[in-house]
């Protein structure tokens, strides 16, 4: 009950945002659908007439379908940057195959006797296409458009990764923030949209021959209208910030910037994977990143000093299930070997090697352990299996590798890694439900995302790394029977960053500087 009430409250509270994201979502879906129809329908007609072309055309359209959507979004960034344009292009590529294929199948599937009769009555090729083949293929074509629409409503949630907006913003932020209401605020409208469009287009498909022609016409007009009414936002000359979904929803993120600094900056939501590059390529001017990120070094970025302390300490440490530590006491020692071994600069360097020099996390981990003389040849590994999880970014992959090498080398335990677990919520839930035995977590995340104490408690702790660590250590053990081992040493906190050159040109050193600059140039 409590959960439902909260969800309802959340919907009421965030109503405007949900509405605007839904509108963006519909806009993305229909703008891409319109493009897919503009290209797909004529292509389908063409290959129905020139059958030799059907193989290459359908093959090409099919290839896009096989590329994972996230990867396709990634490919678009160097070509089209970030924002709605690449998102629409990706959705368009996904919608293309169902539209082309169904147009082709619909036209070629028209009864040969009917085509023969049309020809025999003296209709021209053109008349046959528009008066006979297309009207008769319409139910099949509409089915293709229906498929494309439903696919697009789903894939459009990923647009949030590249600042394309839509309901994905809530979904990803919710996953990252362990906020079920937020996930549902994105997922429920998205599902309803899919069901609604599917239902409506399904209705159209079943109409009488004469009505379906009218309905198809109405549908096309509506599509043009919706995608036309959907304005692609522009930022003008102002600085543009890009924050990942998780940052957007955190008090030690966007919310803190708003409340403590009163920072008011045009913002897009973007995936972590592409954010730094977008900043480097001048698509963005300010991002909320991680202070140990390797790309900081690679792209020559500057961190703006958090002069009013909204970002709490994020010291990394392994979080392990108490039960596992009891069963395998040797684990504590092996994991402890890393205590205090990696400082900020070292971690940034390790990240740089993985993210930018494209070395494998295994190699980076091994090189690091060798340099610290911690690397040992793996033992037999017949003492039991430890499952290590990691979130889906480079640093976590490296840490997971380092830990598995330490465990293999210094104990007789075998290791299984489950890397790339979406975000904090997914990782933490996996640990809680005994799907994994340990993963590296950050003290600040443990405090603000998982424990979520009241604001007074947060304020009393936030300035001190020791207090935060103690608090999470106690609370995790008490509430979840999870043990925080000693921190690794580095502090991977959130930070606002800019291109060093631009920060220097504008003479911005702190977040307060940024705020003042924005106010002066409003």
């Amino acid at each position, binding site marked *: 009950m409590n959960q439902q009430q909260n969800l309802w409250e959340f919907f009421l509270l965030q109503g405007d945002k949900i509405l605007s994201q839904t509108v963006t979502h519909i806009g993305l879906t229909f703008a891409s659908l319109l493009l897919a129809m503009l290209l797909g329908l004529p292509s389908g007609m063409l290959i129905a007439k020139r059958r030799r072309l059907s193989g290459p055309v359908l093959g090409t359209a099919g290839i896009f379908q096989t590329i994972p959507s996230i990867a396709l979004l990634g490919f678009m960034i160097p070509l089209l940057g970030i924002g709605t344009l690449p998102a629409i292009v990706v959705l368009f590529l996904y919608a293309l195959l169902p539209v082309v294929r169904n147009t082709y199948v619909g036209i070629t599937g028209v*009864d040969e006797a009917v085509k023969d*009769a*049309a020809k025999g009555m*003296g209709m021209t090729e053109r008349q046959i296409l528009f008066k006979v083949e297309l009207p*008769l293929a319409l139910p099949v074509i509409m089915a293709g458009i229906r498929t494309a629409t439903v696919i697009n409503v789903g894939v459009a949630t990923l647009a949030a990764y590249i600042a394309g907006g839509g309901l994905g913003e809530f979904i990803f932020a919710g996953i990252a923030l362990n906020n079920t209401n937020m996930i549902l605020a994105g997922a429920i409208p998205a599902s309803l949209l899919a069901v609604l469009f599917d239902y409506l287009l399904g209705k159209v498909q079943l109409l009488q021959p*004469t009505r379906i022609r009218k309905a198809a016409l109405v549908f096309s007009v509506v599509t043009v209208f919706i995608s036309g009414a959907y304005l692609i936002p522009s930022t003008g000359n102002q600085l543009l910030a890009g924050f990942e979904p998780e940052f957007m929803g955190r008090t030690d993120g966007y919310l803190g910037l708003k409340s403590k600094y009163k920072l008011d900056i045009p913002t897009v939501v973007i995936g972590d994977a592409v954010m730094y590059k977008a900043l480097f390529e001048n698509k963005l001017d300010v991002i909320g990143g991680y202070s140990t990120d390797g790309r900081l070094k690679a792209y020559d970025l500057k961190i703006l000093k958090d002069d009013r302390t909204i970002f709490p300490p994020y010291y990394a440490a392994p979080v392990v299930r108490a039960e596992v530590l009891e069963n395998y006491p040797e684990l504590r020692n092996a994991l402890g070997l890393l205590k205090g071994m990696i400082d900020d600069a070292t971690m940034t360097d390790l990240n740089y090697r993985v993210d930018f020099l494209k070395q494998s996390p295994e190699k980076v981990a091994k090189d690091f352990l060798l340099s610290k003389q911690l690397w040992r040849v793996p033992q037999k590994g017949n003492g039991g299996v430890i499952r290590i999880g990691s979130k889906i970014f480079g640093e976590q992959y490296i840490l997971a590798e380092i830990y598995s090498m330490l465990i293999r080398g210094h104990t007789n335990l075998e290791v299984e890694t489950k890397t790339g677990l979406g975000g904090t919520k997914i990782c933490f839930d996996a640990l809680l439900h005994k799907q994994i035995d340990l993963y590296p977590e950050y003290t600040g995340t443990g405090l603000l995302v998982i424990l979520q104490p009241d604001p007074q408690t947060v304020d009393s702790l936030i300035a001190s790394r020791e207090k935060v660590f103690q608090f999470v250590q106690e609370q995790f053990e008490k509430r979840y029977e999870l043990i925080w081992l000693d921190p690794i040493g580095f502090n991977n906190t959130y930070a606002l960053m800019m291109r060093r050159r631009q920060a220097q040109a504008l003479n911005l050193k702190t977040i307060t500087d940024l705020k003042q600059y924005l106010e002066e140039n409003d």
Partner: protein
Amino acid sequence: MIVVENLSKHYNHSVAVQDVSFEVKEGESLVLLGTSGCGKTTTLRMINRLTEASSGEVYINGKSIFSQPADLLRRSIGYVLQNNGLFPHYTVAENIALVPKLLGWSRQQIEERTALLLKKLHLSPERYWNEYPSRLSGGQQQRVGLARALAANPPILLMDEPFGALDPITRASVRKEFRDLDEFSKKTVVLVTHDIQEAFELGDRICLMDKGRIMQHGTPADLVFRPANDFVSNFIGQERFLLGLKAVSISDVWNLLDSDETTGQLEAATMRESQNLWEAMEYLSESGGARAVAVYNEESGEQRKIMVSDILRLLNQFKQDY
């Protein structure tokens, strides 16, 4: 008038039609008869260029069919398909109006013509005007197909197994209806069938084809009584007697008939001289005990009679004289 000269169709290395020539006079009906794969349909489709001939010529009223665009040619030729080929998304009236619309007739002209044709084909315009083909029976669909072919009143009608998709009973009744249409007797018709009975009922002349060639071209009587070769004899086969009766019309044996006055028993004449001996026999066997049927000569107004016992004699006499 249609003149076909040395028409051939080759597909890569196989021959579908080889050197086919024939003439169809105005108002005459020619049946292209043969088993499947004999080239009869290909021959028909080369006349309206649905299949383009590899070589040869076709003249319609002295004008080569290749002298104008194929779609314009087709609008001047009625075409009836085996599976009716009605547009499922068009109503009955829209289907029939297809060619007149392409030809740019006025709305009123089209509506009048559609209503007339529906009536002629025993489909009530009120009932069927806005109906979609899927809601009609097979026989009704084929009638609409026929009406569509006749809509623009083309002088020539090409029919590709027009009754082939119907069950035997419906086929017989639709065929009879069609034969009695004045449209049929006025138009130059080329009809394709594999059904020899149909060929004998509808054809003034018959082209029997095999393996892309014409085996015999002649009247039904020619095929039965003077088969050109063994293939034709075999094709006629066991149905020789029946087909013979169908091939002989009452007018052919008029002079051998007794005048009606000798009995004075019969009332108004029941049959016309254009009907055949088979029909006379059918009538007698179905009338339940009648010994004779009165026949009427439309030209002279004379009335004569055929007795049951006459029929075999008439057939044999005709065969001897032929």
